[in-house]
């Protein structure tokens, strides 16, 4: 079992170079403290949304998009794994930080704690490149593995964090604007104007 902060530190270079969609709760605070980047979409209160949001970004953007998710969030919206597998953009990488608990609400155990395997679920959905990361050796290999072509999902087994970090000080509209500007600078269809200039009746 790994320490989540160590995992984020190990992945920091990759996370800063990609478009990242981050989960809510303590994880997003740790991510901001350790690997802040204007290309990270900090989801401050939308449980279960990192994978669908990242899927949408990956479908409209040629660069690497990483969905960071927790086990509780993944359980909240597990169908999103099937949707990701259905469309399978090769630039989408999913990293589930699995501590077996709803840490932010007091550490209540999740189904993962009772045996649910996200790797098995992902493979069943059609994400064949799915693996667990359990120790330092696995973790050292993770950035290179994620950089390989194709949709990939890693389940990183971590312990419940003992350190809490401050809240992300950014306003949600500013988070969105920063990510949008990043996407525009890196040539994304998703960041283009969506209006057609037509005049609409009041």
């Amino acid at each position, binding site marked *: 079992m790994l320490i989540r902060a160590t995992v984020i530190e190990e992945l920091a270079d990759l996370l800063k170079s990609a478009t990242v969609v981050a989960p809510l709760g303590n994880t997003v605070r740790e991510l901001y403290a350790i690997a802040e980047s204007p290309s990270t979409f900090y989801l*401050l209160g939308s449980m279960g*949304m990192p994978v669908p949001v990242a899927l949408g970004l990956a479908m409209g953007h040629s660069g690497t998009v990483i969905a960071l998710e927790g086990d509780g969030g993944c359980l909240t919206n597990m169908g999103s794994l099937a949707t990701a597998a259905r469309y399978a953009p090769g630039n989408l990488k999913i990293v589930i930080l699995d501590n077996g608990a709803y840490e932010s609400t007091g550490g209540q155990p999740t189904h993962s704690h009772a045996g649910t395997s996200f790797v098995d679920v992902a493979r069943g959905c059609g994400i064949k490149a799915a693996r667990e990361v359990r120790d330092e050796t696995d973790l050292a290999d993770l950035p290179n593995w994620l950089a390989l072509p194709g949709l990939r999902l890693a389940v990183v087994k971590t312990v419940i964090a003992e350190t809490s970090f401050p809240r992300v000080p950014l306003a*949600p*509209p500013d*988070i*969105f604007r920063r990510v949008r500007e990043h996407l525009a600078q890196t040539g994304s269809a998703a960041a283009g104007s*969506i*209006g*057609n200039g037509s005049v*609409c009746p009041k």
Partner: protein
Amino acid sequence: MAVAYGIPLVVAVSLRGDEVDKNPVQKPIGEATVQLIEAIGCEFFRVSSVEEAESALSCARTKAESERRPQFVLLPRREALC
């Protein structure tokens, strides 16, 4: 989420629970849909014919972008269209 982040999202709502819906379980949400949209401070475009759908979606896109706020397009059941 889309409201809080100011995301110019267009939401196409497939309406159920209207006057032509025979399923009573759909009625509560059907009767509350407009109020729910308004309760989160958003506006909606109501489509009453197939011909209106394209312009409604186009207007919703333009308005969503200019106001940095989600816009809803209400799509009724086929039987309710003009």
